[in-house]
């Protein structure tokens, strides 16, 4: 499987049907790269002509803006909008809720108008339309799972159902945490916290949140954000549970359950 870049397609006079906006985390972080690979596998299986920007992609500016550096945010936004517009990109799928929010809600004010999907929304569409088919339930799939709402998907953009619908399509049993949906608790990474130590307190946000996840008794914690993923994994390590319990992105779970002979595409 070879993923073309938008520039390569452009050189051939082509345009992708969909731009996969990978984001910094899924580009560089080893855990999050698994999500990117899973998505690439799924897109390929569904026969979607997608491409990535590779080195032409830059940070959306989300952490800079949340930290208060509006200058830097606007610089990054204008730069990315320039790239996207130059290639005439219309549809974007991203695996990071922070990129999703910036691209979808914040770029229009600076001249970037795109149709932006978070991968959970897009994957659910593929499942619903039968463009990918899923393996019949395995014993593992029947185990309970708990889903951690990312703030920037849930409260920020009202996406609560798509990730859960996918888990249901995978025939997994969802056990909700004490705080879920609009009451979901932050993983602790947002607002540029990912890049600095937490302020002094009784405990860390990710540790508190992981406790809630562990309290559900689920062996799998599903996430839909690379930062939540990292934070929860660190929480598991702190609790010494990283062997028993796993954190996985929804995309990874879907990729693991792709039926080997696809009904469509291939």
């Amino acid at each position, binding site marked *: *499987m*070879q*993923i073309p870049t938008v520039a390569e397609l452009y050189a051939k006079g082509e345009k992708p049907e969909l731009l996969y906006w*990978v984001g*910094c985390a*899924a*580009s*560089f972080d080893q855990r999050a*790269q698994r999500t990117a*690979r899973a998505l*690439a596998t799924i897109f390929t299986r569904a026969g979607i002509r997608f491409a990535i920007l*590779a*080195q032409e*992609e*830059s*940070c959306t500016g989300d*952490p*800079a*803006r949340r*930290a*208060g*550096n*509006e*200058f*830097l945010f*606007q*610089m*990054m936004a*204008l*730069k990315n909008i320039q790239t996207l517009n130059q290639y005439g990109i219309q549809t974007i799928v991203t695996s990071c809720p922070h990129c999703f*929010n910036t691209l979808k*809600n*914040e770029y229009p004010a*600076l*001249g970037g108008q795109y149709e932006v999907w978070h991968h959970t929304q897009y994957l659910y569409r593929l499942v619903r339309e039968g463009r990918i088919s899923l393996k019949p339930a395995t014993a593992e799939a029947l185990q309970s799972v708990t889903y951690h709402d990312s*703030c*920037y998907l849930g*409260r*920020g*953009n*009202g996406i609560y159902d798509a990730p859960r619908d996918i888990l249901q399509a995978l025939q997994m049993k969802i056990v909700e945490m004490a705080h879920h949906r609009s*009451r979901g*608790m*932050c993983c*602790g990474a*947002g*607002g*540029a*916290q*990912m*890049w*600095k130590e*937490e*302020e*002094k*307190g*009784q*405990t860390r*946000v990710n*540790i508190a949140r992981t406790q809630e996840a562990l309290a559900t008794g689920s062996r799998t914690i599903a996430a839909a954000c690379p930062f939540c993923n990292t934070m929860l994994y660190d929480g598991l390590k702190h609790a010494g549970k990283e062997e028993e319990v796993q954190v996985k992105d929804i995309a990874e779970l879907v990729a693991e359950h792709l039926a080997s002979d696809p009904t469509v595409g291939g």
Partner: protein
Amino acid sequence: MLIAQIVFIALLVIAITLFSRQVRKIRRNILLGRDEQISGNRWKRWKNVLLLAFGQKKMFRNWIPAILHLFVYLGFIIINLEILEIILDGILGTHRLFLPYIKPVYPAFISAFEVLAVLVILACSIFLIRRNILHVRRFENPEMTCWPRRDANNILIFEIILMLLFLTMNASDQALQMKHYGHYYPTGSFLITHPIAQHLQQISPGLLVGLERGSWWLHIAGVLFFLNYLPYSKHFHILLAFPNTYYASLEPKSQMPLMADIVPEVRSMMGLEADDSQSAPASPPVHFGARDVFDLSWRHLLAAYSCTECGRCTAACPANQTGKKLSPRKIMMDTRDRLEEIGRNIDMHGSFVDDGKSLLNYISEEELRACTTCQACVEECPVSISPLAIILELRRYLVMEASSTPQEWNAMFTSIENNGAPWTFPPDERGQWASRLA
């Protein structure tokens, strides 16, 4: 009679004058904020007012206090009808003015008010117990000591007293009716106070009249006092909840507002031509972000006066839950306190005289830094306040103007600028995960 009318009218005029003077001050304070145009759908805004302010929709995220609050709220709205009669009686020197006009339904109306009065007493008593005996966690934060605590208790006790006076007035009135005394014409019996009236009959008519008049006067004087207490209290929310829900942001909670002022500068820095849609601002901002309340939008200042100090935001805040100093409720209270301080400064000097302080004397960097921008506070607030919006403006000031940034964030900024990523990975490695695909 005439003297009573004059006293009453004087009382009314004084109370209303004082109240409107205070309201004008608050309005002036709110307008100290930066100008901000309200855009977007009017209909959606009205819908928010109907659902959130009138309909109490968000309150019902939390059932028990929502029902209790509903009693107090309905009690407040509906009893105003009764107060209308009291005021007219006071001005005209009449007694139960509406009675002859709506005689058949009058007892039903008053009985309904009485039932509400009992529910209000019940709800306020439970609220008092929750706050002072059960120690509900969200009322125990450090910002809830001294005045905020007393303010909340004052109001609850006050409401109970007002309702008790209302019931005493009706009970003694009916006792007098039963004795066919003076102008106390029969009204038909009121649900709650009728049985009490029967017991009161043993009391002499003179004493009963004293009781009736006494509670009538104390009730209305209490209401007028209450009116003038409001602007000094978090209970001003009963008025400001309405405009505040109207003006609240309609954007997704995760969308941070664009600083349009600096767009032309950034564009030219990047060698981009000016964008016609974003012409240069008429007056450049005094500060980048907010250092003081003047730099916040009037909408944020309106929100500060609308905050009910209920602490739902703080209870949901992950930073607060894990023991950080940040409390979104405190952000709103501090904003209001600072604004009030500036208001007093203006009252004293005619215009604002620099006091060497800013909002950052109230809100520490440690608090501001702890926010994960998770929007839980915005989600929870029953009156659509966004403490997050103020946090973001203050962070902008810290980073862009005060250059007070944690070292790690500076490194992150540098990396974004140089590598296009918050981590120090070179951009040409961005696609490597893909080339390593099997």
